[in-house]
């Protein structure tokens, strides 16, 4: 930082002044921001341990502590099954989307073909059609599919996964394409001159170089899949086939109770995998999101 180039004067008073000019305000700002970021989280945690378990009885600070809500959740719902289902969808969808999207991004980044521009803009625009209206169409489609192949019809994981994969090419492809662009063309061109096929260039040269953006897109898809419940509510009806997001949604939607304590426990549990994935991918994230920040 430029401040570092200024001279150092070694009186304590000015050292403090320097410190506060350089770091002090930053700490103040960050504490404010962290408070803003944290208080709803604190609220949900306190609701999770609050023995009463309704939303409005929850306070910012826990008024009591107990694991009744957690116990209720495990006792009254097939929580572990839901959890496993959620992880299945999140991981499978993230993996497949990353792969499909990377393939497409490679083509968009490295090849010139007719319809390329239309294709990319189209990818953005198709996302803007309200998905929920398509539910009727999805119903009709999968009812027909289910008649012939019940394995991928309604109430199956594979069916829902297929629908999720319909969104594999999306803004994420743009993100990846931007990152692919930052990899110097000379690298793959020289490899091709050495006799590598385009597939070899893609798998052996490109993919290892773009790991950060793969990690990012994987994370993004992971998060959005784990929070998805609209399509899941159409597809999954067997109690054991449900995802955690869907199960939780039905828990609050159900008219009988304000199960907010249980819901909060579930919400926290639902956030855990994201946090863990986040933690492990952390070192890629700052790199991956830049998407070719500096090109001159």
């Amino acid at each position: 930082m430029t401040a570092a180039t200024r001279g150092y004067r070694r009186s304590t008073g000015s050292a403090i002044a320097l410190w506060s000019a350089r770091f002090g305000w930053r700490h103040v700002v960050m504490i404010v921001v962290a408070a803003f970021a944290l208080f709803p989280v604190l609220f949900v945690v306190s609701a999770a341990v609050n023995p009463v378990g309704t939303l409005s009885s929850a306070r910012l600070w826990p008024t009591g502590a107990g694991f009744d809500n957690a116990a209720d959740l495990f006792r009254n719902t097939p929580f572990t099954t839901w959890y496993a289902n959620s992880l299945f969808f999140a991981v499978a969808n993230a993996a497949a989307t990353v792969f499909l999207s990377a393939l497409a991004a490679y083509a968009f980044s490295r090849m010139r073909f007719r319809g390329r521009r239309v294709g990319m803009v189209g990818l953005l625009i198709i996302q803007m059609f309200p998905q929920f209206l398509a539910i009727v169409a999805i119903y009709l489609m999968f009812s027909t599919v289910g008649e012939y192949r019940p394995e991928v019809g309604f109430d199956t994981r594979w069916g829902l996964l297929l629908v999720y994969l319909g969104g594999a090419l999306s803004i994420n492809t743009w993100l990846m394409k931007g990152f692919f662009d930052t990899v110097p063309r000379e690298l793959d061109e020289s490899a091709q001159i050495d006799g590598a096929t385009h597939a070899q260039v893609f798998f052996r040269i490109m993919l290892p170089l773009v790991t950060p953006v793969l990690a990012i897109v994987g994370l993004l898809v992971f998060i959005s899949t784990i929070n998805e419940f609209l399509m899941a509510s159409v597809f999954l009806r067997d109690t054991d086939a449900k995802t955690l997001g869907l199960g939780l949604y039905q828990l609050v939607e159900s008219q009988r109770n304000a199960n907010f304590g249980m819901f909060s426990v579930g919400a926290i549990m639902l956030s855990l995998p994201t946090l863990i994935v986040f933690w492990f991918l952390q070192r890629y994230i700052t790199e991956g999101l830049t998407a070719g920040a500096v090109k001159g």
Partner: protein
Amino acid sequence: MSSRNSAGAPGPGAPARTSPPGGGLAGSGSLWGQVAKIALLGLFTALGVWAALPLYVGGNWAGIAVVAAVLVLVYWVYLSKRTVPLKYLLPGVLFLIAFQILPVLYTMSTSVTNFSDGHRGDKEQAIAAIEAYSVTRAEQGREFGLTVATTGDPETGELVFLLTDSDGTAYAGDIEGLRPLDDATVDPASGRVTEAFGYTVLTPAQVNARSQELEEFAVPVGDGAGIRANSLSTAYEGRATRVYDAGCDCVTDTSTGVVYTADDERGAFYSEDGERLAQGWRVNVGFDNFARFLFNPTFASSFFTILVWNIGFAVAVTGLVFVVGLAIALTLHVPRLRGKKAYRILVVLPYAMSSLAMYLLWRDMFNTDFGLFNQLLGTNVDWLGDAWTARFAVILANVWLGYPYMFLVATGALQAIPRELTQAARIDGAGAWQAFRHVTLPMLMVAMTPILIATFAFNFNNFNAVWLITKGGPFPPDDPSAGATDLLITYTYRMAFSQATAEYGYAAALSVMIFVIVSVMSVISLSRGKALQEVDR
């Protein structure tokens, strides 16, 4: 590998070489690649066969044609040398077409129909329902104990009702009519026939297998009445009061004598004085749905208000998350700041939380009497009850959820900017702000524009953001259909699903409108911004 390395990449002036299509070198692919290719294609073929088998059994030739066409396409793409880009695009595009584009096209096609509650099925279904629903118990209609039997094979033989009336007299009834049954064994406890010479009694499962047949089966007893089953063990005498006549394309109510004539423009049966039968069918109504909102002044004004707020909302959220995220990134963008890692985790936390739960939580925090905000601030603001505070609440909640992503993006982008550049600017005498404004920011924008566009597009249609917090409210007392925080998408959702009569056709027409508006806006902003130039690079 990081983008930092790419700082040394050729600048924009470097000619974008048209790379020779890699397909030219496909021949020298490794053995491994060939094997993988064959295996994958084989697997795909197997998948095709797997999909086609039941279609073949079911005689669905159109389905088989689709499967075959996809197979041929895949073979062509992966065996030809001239389709290199397609080799990479096809897998994703196939999914995209099947599960996004086709459903969207279907939905668009319903926008010119009257598809809505009461108009879901086709005409035959409506007629069937009208007739079935009009069957009522005849005046002083008899009840019978019922045993379903057949004279032939349990699966296909002609159905016969073995009946016992309240006196215990046994009858056999079939499609011909009712006749006494002499040699039947009647179980005294249930009063039902258990055995009769010449008839095979069906088990419950066997009867159930013939449910559809049973629904239409009636033993005629004259005067239009018939004996029908109302459970596996009982039957009653009833009559259909409404009958369809294909000749006049009308339904006659035999009890009142009213004639309802089919109106194929509106998709329902209407009587002479305008009464309609509840069960209608779906018909094409051309551009009526569009006309309905384009030429309706109330609608036009609420549509316009919603559109303005919708754009305002998306701009505000996108702008604020950008500013907040960038500000935090800049604050943390200094070497040797103590606790940087901890701050980073704390600040990013909202992003990891389940958004569904968090929206509900924010809604509750804005409650007037019990919400956290009024408690902490000591105020008594009716946050969600007033248009502007509700808008503020919705924006605030979304900034909370959205800024961590921007923070991450901005942090990455900042780190990729070589420090020498800013330093150079400062040495040239620029102030900190000027250095940021003229050096850092422009470089940041290059990286962040696509992400900003994506954020804008996402928030423009951010259904949960509004639905879970305000459901579009508060509503002006005189217009409960368009609320102050309604986005076009929540407004459409209310049209299609949330009100008593689901109006898909109308909602689809609205969606098409929204779609057109958003697309035009995006294309314009894309072509004016840098993002699309990037595409052309």
